[in-house]
């Protein structure tokens, strides 16, 4: 069982890193696209973007530091406070916000535990003993994060699940996998909470488990901790199958599409990319498209 949990945890972390990594690579390798911007606020529209010829000073004003900072701030604000959800529904927002505190807290809690394990392994002569002696701010932080994230995870995910069930428009579009996700999140949070309450108030056992993994000497785990580790691994494997990676990909959508106003300057990198892509052959087969033509040829074809 100990070896199984250690291997499963290794696999789960490798899986999520690999899956998310491949998504980032997929985005990065996507070809240049047509401009398709959108002004999300009048404030963002204030620079006189299309009043001057492309690539002149006025056009470049759109890409000025002030403009970027303004957009970056609205982007960050959405990350930190979810104002769009707040203006939509206060009840939905509050559960969503609490659930996200739980989710982000769980990530930081785990990183802290892994970091502590790695650090303890490196600096201590007897790391398994040392973990019990870790005191001070690290333990307080670990405990605080653990308790807050578990409590938030329980409240937020129960709230979200009930909200989705009770609202027809949400229920209709929510697949069983999402409800499974809520259950797993509630399960992890609940077990984590019970672990803290009943057997491991400083989460030393969890850190020790990671030390065992770092040393490739799986330690014996049992009870609440075993269940917690099992559920957590399941959760990590589950996440790449959800839209949860929007944490990262939304940056591509905003900065890479909606706010991407880089003009096509003669001789510039965009022109080079467009010139290259216009050499692609078109495979669409409607009657108004001649088979085998490149984009460049078809654009100059008047039929």
């Amino acid at each position, binding site marked *: 069982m100990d070896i199984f949990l250690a291997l499963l945890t290794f696999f789960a972390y490798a899986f999520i890193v690999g899956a998310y990594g491949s998504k980032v690579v*997929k985005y990065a*390798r*996507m*070809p*240049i*696209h*047509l*401009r398709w*911007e*959108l*002004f999300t*606020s*009048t404030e*963002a*529209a*204030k620079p*006189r*973007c*299309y*009043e001057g*010829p*492309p*690539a002149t000073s006025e056009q470049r004003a*759109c890409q000025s530091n002030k403009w970027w900072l303004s957009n970056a701030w609205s982007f960050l604000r959405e990350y930190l406070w979810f104002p*769009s*959800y707040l203006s*939509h529904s206060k009840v939905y927002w509050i559960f969503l916000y609490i659930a996200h505190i739980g989710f982000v807290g769980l990530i930081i809690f785990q990183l802290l535990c892994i970091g502590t394990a790695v650090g303890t392994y490196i600096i201590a002569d007897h790391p398994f003993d040392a973990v019990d002696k870790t005191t001070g701010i690290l333990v307080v932080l670990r405990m605080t994060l653990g308790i807050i994230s578990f409590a938030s995870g329980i409240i937020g995910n129960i709230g979200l699940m009930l909200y989705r069930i009770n609202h027809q*428009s*949400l229920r*209709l579009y929510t*697949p069983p*996998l999402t409800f*499974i996700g809520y259950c797993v999140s509630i399960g992890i949070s609940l077990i984590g909470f019970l672990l803290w309450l009943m057997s491991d108030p400083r989460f030393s056992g969890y850190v020790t488990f990671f030390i065992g993994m770092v040393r490739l000497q799986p330690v014996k785990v049992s009870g609440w901790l075993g269940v917690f580790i099992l559920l957590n691994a399941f959760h990590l494997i589950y996440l790449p*199958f959800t*839209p949860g990676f929007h944490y990262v*990909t*939304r940056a*591509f*959508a905003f900065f*890479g*599409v*909606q706010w991407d106003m880089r003009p*096509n300057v003669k001789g510039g990198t965009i*022109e080079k990319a*467009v*010139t290259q892509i*216009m050499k*692609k052959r*078109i*495979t*669409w*087969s*409607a009657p*108004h*498209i001649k088979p085998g033509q490149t*984009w460049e040829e*078809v*654009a*100059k074809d*008047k039929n």
Partner: protein
Amino acid sequence: MRIEDISKESDQLVKIEQKDLIPLPYPYDKPDKDPGIRELSPEQKERYEASLDGVVGVGIPKPKNKAEEEMFVRKFLSGLSKLIEKENNWTFLKPLYHSLEYCVKCQICNDSCPAYVASGRKEIYRPTFRPEVLRRIIDKYIKKKNKAILKLTGSDIELNWTLIARLGELAYRCTICRKCAQVCPLGVDNGLISHEIRKLFSQEMGIAPKELHEQGTVQQLRVGSSTGINPKALGNIIEFMEDDIEDKIGRRIKIPVDKKGAEILLLHNAGEFMSWPENTEAFAIIFDAAGIDWTLSSEAVGYDAVNYGVWYDDIQLARVATRQAEIARDLGVKKMNVGECGHAHKAMIVVADRVLIGDLNIPRESALPILRDIVMSGKIKLDPSRNNFPVTLHDPCNMVRLMGIVEPQREILRKICPQFREMEPHGVDNYCCGGGSGFAIMQSMNFPDWRSAVSGRIKLKQILEVFQDVISPDVKKYVCAPCSNCKGQIRDLFNYYSTWNECSIFYGGLVELIVNAMADLEKPFIEWEWH
């Protein structure tokens, strides 16, 4: 209804009833003031797919036999595969991929959709409905996920002719105003998904509304303009406009045509020549008075700014934009300026920026800032008291939300219209006129009724609300819509509700108001004649 019901055969998936539509303010606050949507004839229903909502916009003919039906499904799947491959859809793959993969279905976007809200929240018009259908088809038929995964991810759906035909029609119940994308905190763009479905139908299946394709881009490339105006007819129109200007302002202005090396090649939506020549005349009067070095082109395609490709077909978009740029290059103009046409702004200045390369990459701009500079410079003497009537501004989505041109038109109106008032919401948060993405020119069967009763309803509501204190027909009012398609939609909307008769609300462009305020004109330029 459930999402999977879209593939189940029935007479009509959704019925639009008057009682469900959002109420309008006075004087349209009584049900008998709402003309309703005409029923299709039995022959029309027999011939075309109309089982979505009893409305026909695209006009997809029903299959004659099983083989035709199967071919239709195969073609659709072939197009759908291409839509999600970078080899075939470089133009929009990145935003499409993001929108398909990362929507969490929180439904925040729902309240921003004018068609969904105005219809009384009919499920099929919900901004997330089309994407969800498409996502399910991709999971089941393209990615071929196994049954258990499909159940878990809620992706089960039955693909058949009915579903595809309804989806094709449904792509033309979204004006691609992208207000839903504007409010999405995750950057998901459900409007783009409508665009991509249209593209699949056009580029792979050869299906598009005839007003956009055969009579639109194809006619524009062949004859010169989507209106059917050929270069010879343009010559007559220009002569007529010069006569008309002389009648109106008492002096003749020579409209420059094919002037080599001019500073500006001005491109109008050719619809203006046909329906609102006073708009193009007003441009000529202002540019002449301000001493602008400009020209029109008499070359086919060069005198029509429209590019309907931006709504449904990337290839047609590239063809039209390339031809327009070739004409500007051959004339040796310094830049191209787009007149009062929203989608032409977006297509030529923004979207085509990654199609036009080398010597075709000519500076392209909006005409609005030039007009603003002329008005603010004092080059022409303006008397705001000549525009002393209530005026409001409609923000064309393509220019404003999608391009950020918010202020120039407002600066002008604040200066020359003492009774200018903003409708709510406005600016980048505006509502579509209801005629966006080609709807304004789509005249098929009962589709015009739908776009007046449903997609344009919120715009009418906004207009009536902003003029509520002067709603009496005794007071003439003006909706300034600096976009040809928006004007077309507002004209049809006002005709449908008899708004000119009931409330004396007129509509027109921005330049007409500028010329109307010119102090040295003997008589008003705006004639308040309903057309």
